Structures are given as structure tokens and as C-alpha cells.
């Protein structure tokens, strides 16, 4: 049984989706237990994988036992880099699922089963991208993720979410197609799609690895993945798609989809092309760090200009993607930048999850879409506001939240690589985040009493001040995931030493594979 953990992670949500399709349409009450049990099973499998990797190193799994030569067949591969990401995906998905209990299709409860089918298929795609060991399967699973994301965005009632989903579809398809072209060039030159095979061939044949086709392949793959992760000049689809989608969809899409794309980039760099190869043959690594710096600056600047909470958070995601891409490309010899990137994937997934759950709860139960609507929040829903504060502090980078430690490792990598502008960009972006969030905290804490969600009766302010404030927390199914996410943000920060050590065993293991050429 425990040998089959890597495939069970995928199969649980897949069969869950089928079960909802079969039984959930008639009786909507079936949906939530199925979703939760499938995801909890995935979470258990993911934790099992982490423990096995911790005990015995990389796990290889050949679906249906097809150990075919030349990597035809479905290979799943779990190592110290991707197994923690599996756990975080499962956790964030469970939190989002609990959050959506009563309002899956938002206005339209008819759509509940449809929502959950898409939700589980999205999880299959995300788990699959993370665990697969085959470059072509990554493409297929990216498209599974993308197609379900379009559906989850467009399932909301608003007019704008459909247009946002359409734009996302165009950008996403072009990005995935670029990735496909890159894989095509790799196959053309190397005759293999298995990541490990590609790596072995490239590491053993220097002139082939330096050839123009392989360089082109790398650039195509990189640009495709950048489009998928909304790296700055290619970010156009993200703000509208995530801010106009229903809160439940945003709670899973925003934390996970971009982060998993960042993981694909790291995977391509570390164990397909190989870091040594990139250092030897890619002269424009510094240029990418500069692009990341521009992305950080642009994301932070755009966030300052936003007046809607969700839009602001979306712009912050763009800045965070800049952190991660920059960290991965720093190229410091001890790989601290890359460590920071992988740790930040985990940290950012949890922080973003926390913030989007909070934003969803505020929009639903406080009627707040804009920053100034948040006034009086601390008096109305102190617990939910506390969860939001923890998420905000993590984005700013205040210890002991995980946001502090990921920035710490990224900055350590940047200092060792001597990339001072990146350090400055990270610090400046933290300052901007501090301005953004403390502005919100100020409104929420010191602002006037809560404005009723319907009327704008604040022209007679004196009456409001004398009114007793009713404490009305969001219902438990929204509050618990929010607080759980906040607790996990702090927990991941406190456990950063263990997690980072674990990630680094993976990075160093892969690095030694490169140097021995096998």
C-alpha cells in the first residue's frame, strides 16, 4: 500500500470528482463529504511521501508498472523539493473546500456539484504537475489545471468574470503552447521526455547541451511557464481573473496556480537542464534577476494604486512571483537563493491562502470590496481580522511568520551572489507592503463604526459613534479555515529550520547527480 502513495495522491481527487459527477448532481449533500475525504486522503498520502522521502530519498513510481525504456509511460517522482509542496497544496485545498461549504457557486447553488468537480480536477492537475517526472505530462497537467481554472473563474455570477476568464484562457493557452514547443525541441534533440533521462543526456554531452536547439527549448519553456505564473510583463491576465472570480475559487486559485508554475520552473532548472549546465551556458541569468526586480517594483507599485482589497492582493502576487523568479536565478554557489525560492513557494501559498480567505470572508459578511469599507472591522469581527493581520504581517515579512524567513533566505542568497539591487528591491517591496497593510489595519482598527453593507449612512457620523457595535464574526466554516491558515503561516515560520534543511537535501542531492554525470 505504502508503495503506491505517489499515485494515490492523484487518484483520490480524481475519483472524488467522478463520484460527485455520478452522485452529487442529484443530492448536493454528497459533495462536501466526498471533497473533504478525497483531499484528506491526498493530504495523508502527501505526508506519507514526505516521511518516506525523508527516510529513504527520492521515490520513483511507474504507473501500472511500465518501466519502459526511454521514459514512455507515466513516471511519478517525489523528492525533497516537491513533496513538501504536495502537502501544502493539499492543506490549502482543504481550507478552501471548507470555506466554500455554503456558497460554492456563490449566488447559484445549482452549480455546487459543478464547482466541486472542477475544484477536485484542479487539485488533480496541481498534484500531477508537482509529482510527475515527465516533461510532456507537465504540459497535459498544466492544461488540466488551466481548463479547470477557467471554469472556476467563470462560474461566478458577475459579468466581468467571464471576460476575465476569456483573457486568461487566451494568455494561458499561448503560454502552455510555448511550453509544448520547448518540450518538442527537447524531444527532437534528445529523443526522450523523461526528465531524468533528459538530464542524464544533457549532463553527459556538453556540446549537445550547448546546441542552439536546446537553448531555444529552454527559452520557450521558460517563457511559457512565465506566462503561466504571471511574471511581470506577462502578468496581464492575473488581476482581473482572480479578483472577479467567486471567493471560493480565488481561495484555491490564487495561492496555488502561480506557485505550482514557479515550481515547474525550479524543476526545469534543477533537474531537467541542471544548474551547472545553466551556469555554464546561460549568459543571461543576471538579466532574469533584473526582470524579477522590475516585476517586484511593478507589482508593488500597482498594489499601491489599488483601492479594492482583492485587486491589491493580486498585485502583491505579481510582486511575490518576482521574488521567487529572482531567487531561483541568483546563482549563488551555496544555492541559498534557490532554497529561498522553494521555501517561499510553500510560505506564499499559505500566506496568500490566508489573505484570500480573509478577503473572501470580508466581502461576504462585511460587504467590503474596497479598502475604506473595512472600517470598524476589528470591532465587528475581531477573530477574522486577526487572521488577516497575521497574513498581512507575513507578506510584510515580520518574524516569526514564514514570510520573514523566506525573505531571509532570499536575501542571504542575493548577498552571497553579490546582487545588491535585488536585496534593495526585496527590502523596498517589504516597506511598500508595510505601508499597504498598515493602511488597512488603520482603517480597520481606528476607522469609524462598520458601515452597513447596503446603505452609506455615514453622513450622520455622531449617531454611529453612539451605536453599540454588534460583534458578528463570519460563520465557523469561514472562520476556521482562516484561523487555521494563519496558524500554519506562523507554524511554517517556526519550523523553517527543519523545512529548509529538508529542501536542501533535495537540492544538494540533485546537484551531486549533475557533477557525477549520472
Amino acid at each position: 500500500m505504502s508503495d503506491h502513495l505517489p499515485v494515490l495522491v492523484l487518484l483520490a481527487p480524481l475519483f472524488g470528482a467522478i463520484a460527485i459527477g455520478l452522485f452529487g448532481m442529484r443530492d448536493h449533500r454528497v459533495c462536501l463529504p466526498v471533497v473533504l475525504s478525497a483531499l484528506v486522503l491526498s493530504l495523508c498520502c502527501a505526508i506519507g511521501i514526505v516521511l518516506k522521502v525523508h527516510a529513504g530519498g527520492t521515490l520513483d513510481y511507474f504507473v501500472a508498472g511500465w518501466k519502459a525504456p526511454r521514459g514512455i509511460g507515466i513516471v511519478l517522482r517525489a523528492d525533497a523539493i516537491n513533496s513538501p509542496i504536495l502537502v501544502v497544496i493539499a492543506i490549502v485545498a482543504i481550507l478552501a473546500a471548507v470555506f466554500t461549504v455554503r456558497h460554492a457557486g456563490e449566488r447559484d447553488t445549482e452549480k455546487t456539484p459543478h464547482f466541486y468537480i472542477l475544484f477536485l480536477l484542479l487539485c488533480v492537475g496541481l498534484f500531477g504537475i508537482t509529482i510527475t517526472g515527465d516533461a510532456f505530462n507537465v504540459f497535459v497537467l498544466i492544461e488540466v489545471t488551466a481548463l479547470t481554472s477557467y471554469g472556476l473563474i467563470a462560474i461566478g455570477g458577475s459579468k466581468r468574470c467571464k471576460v476575465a476568464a476569456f483573457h486568461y484562457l487566451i494568455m494561458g493557452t499561448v503560454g502552455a503552447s510555448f511550453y509544448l514547443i520547448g518540450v518538442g525541441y527537447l524531444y527532437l534533440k534528445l529523443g526522450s521526455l523523461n526528465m531524468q533521462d533528459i538530464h542524464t543526456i544533457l549532463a553527459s554531452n556538453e556540446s549537445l547541451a550547448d546546441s542552439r536547439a536546446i537553448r531555444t527549448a529552454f527559452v520557450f519553456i521558460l517563457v511559457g511557464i512565465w506566462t503561466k505564473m504571471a511574471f511581470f510583463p506577462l502578468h496581464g491576465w492575473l488581476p482581473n481573473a482572480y479578483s472577479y472570480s467567486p471567493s471560493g475559487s480565488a481561495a484555491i486559485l490564487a495561492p496555488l496556480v502561480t506557485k505550482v508554475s514557479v515550481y515547474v520552473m525550479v524543476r526545469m532548472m534543477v533537474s531537467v537542464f541542471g544548474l551547472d549546465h545553466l551556469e555554464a551556458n546561460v549568459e543571461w541569468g543576471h538579466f532574469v534577476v533584473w526582470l524579477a526586480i522590475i516585476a517586484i517594483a511593478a507589482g508593488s507599485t500597482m498594489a499601491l494604486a489599488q483601492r479594492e482589497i482583492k485587486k491589491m492582493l493580486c498585485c502583491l502576487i505579481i510582486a511575490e512571483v518576482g521574488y521567487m523568479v529572482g531567487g531561483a536565478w541568483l546563482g549563488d554557489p551555496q544555492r541559498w537563493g534557490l532554497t529561498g525560492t522553494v521555501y517561499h513557494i510553500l510560505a506564499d501559498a499559505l500566506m496568500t491562502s490566508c489573505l484570500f480567505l480573509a478577503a473572501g470572508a470580508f466581502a461576504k459578511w462585511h460587504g467590503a470590496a474596497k479598502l475604506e469599507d473595512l472600517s470598524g472591522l476589528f470591532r465587528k469581527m475581531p477573530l477574522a481580522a486577526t487572521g488577516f493581520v497575521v497574513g498581512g504581517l507575513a507578506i510584510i515579512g515580520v518574524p516569526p511568520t514564514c514570510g520573514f524567513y523566506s525573505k531571509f533566505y532570499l536575501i542571504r542568497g542575493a548577498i552571497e551572489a553579490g546582487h545588491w539591487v535585488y536585496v534593495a528591491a526585496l527590502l523596498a517591496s517589504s516597506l511598500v507592503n508595510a505601508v499597504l497593510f498598515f493602511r488597512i489595519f488603520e482603517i480597520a482598527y481606528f476607522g469609524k463604526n462598520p458601515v452597513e453593507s447596503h446603505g452609506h449612512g455615514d453622513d450622520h457620523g455622531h449617531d454611529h459613534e453612539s451605536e453599540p457595535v454588534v460583534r458578528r464574526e463570519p460563520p465557523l466554516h469561514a472562520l476556521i479555515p482562516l484561523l487555521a491558515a494563519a496558524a500554519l503561516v506562523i507554524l511554517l515560520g517556526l519550523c523553517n529550520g527543519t523545512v529548509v534543511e529538508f529542501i536542501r537535501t533535495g537540492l544538494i542531492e540533485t546537484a551531486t547527480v549533475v557533477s557525477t554525470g549520472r
Partner: protein
Amino acid sequence: MEAFFKEAVVPHFNFWIYVIIMMIGLWSVIAKNNLIKKLIGLSIFQTAILLLYVSLGVKEGASIPIIDHHAAERSLVGDAGAINPDLIANPVPHVLMLTAIVVGVATLGVALALCQMIYKDFGTLEEDEVLQKIKALHDDV
């Protein structure tokens, strides 16, 4: 010019053609205003990539990749009794493209459904008009 054609274009004409077709598709995605025309461009774009992969599997004079009882008659078997891979087209890229075609069809299906919803909401499929109406929506709020 002639040397360029002989060295770069003729031996690699499949690559030239796929890039040209792909750029036609991409141009249409970027430049066309009508959402359906954008989707047609997107389909052309994806089909061009199918063409790249399919052309990778082709070998001159090779047969279909099915090894049956008549393999010897079809002279697929070499002298040593082993299958001669030079005489069989590479099936892997073709199989990969079956998956990619399915992905493309699914994407197109979702995109057309979105177009239908956009048309129901806005009464038009011209992108600039849709954006204008969204802007009006935004100003009302």
C-alpha cells in the same frame, strides 16, 4: 540567396512552415477584435505545434509503426532478425499529439462556452465594445 535556400530552408522546410503558420495564428490572436476570430487564431496556433511534432516522427521511406506477422514481408526485419528502426516511423510524437489535440479541443470548447456567456451578458463579441461596456459597468459602481 540560393545558398540560403539550399542550406537553411529546403532541409528544414517543416520548421519554416510551422513557424509561419504559428505566427499567422498568433497575429490573429493579437490583432483581431472579434473574440471568435481570436479563437480561430488560437486554434491555428495550436495546430501549427501539432504539425511540428508530427513532422518530427517522419522518416523518409519509413512504414507505419505496426509490427505484425508480415513484418518480414514488409522487409522491416534486418539481417540479424531484429526490427530495423530506420524503416518505421516514430510513433511517439504522433501519440503525444493525440493528447495535445484533445487538450486543444477542450480548450476550444471552454472558450466557445465563455464566448456564449459573454454574448448573453454584453450582446456583442467585439472586444472593444465588451471592454467599453465593462468600463461603463465600472463607472456605475
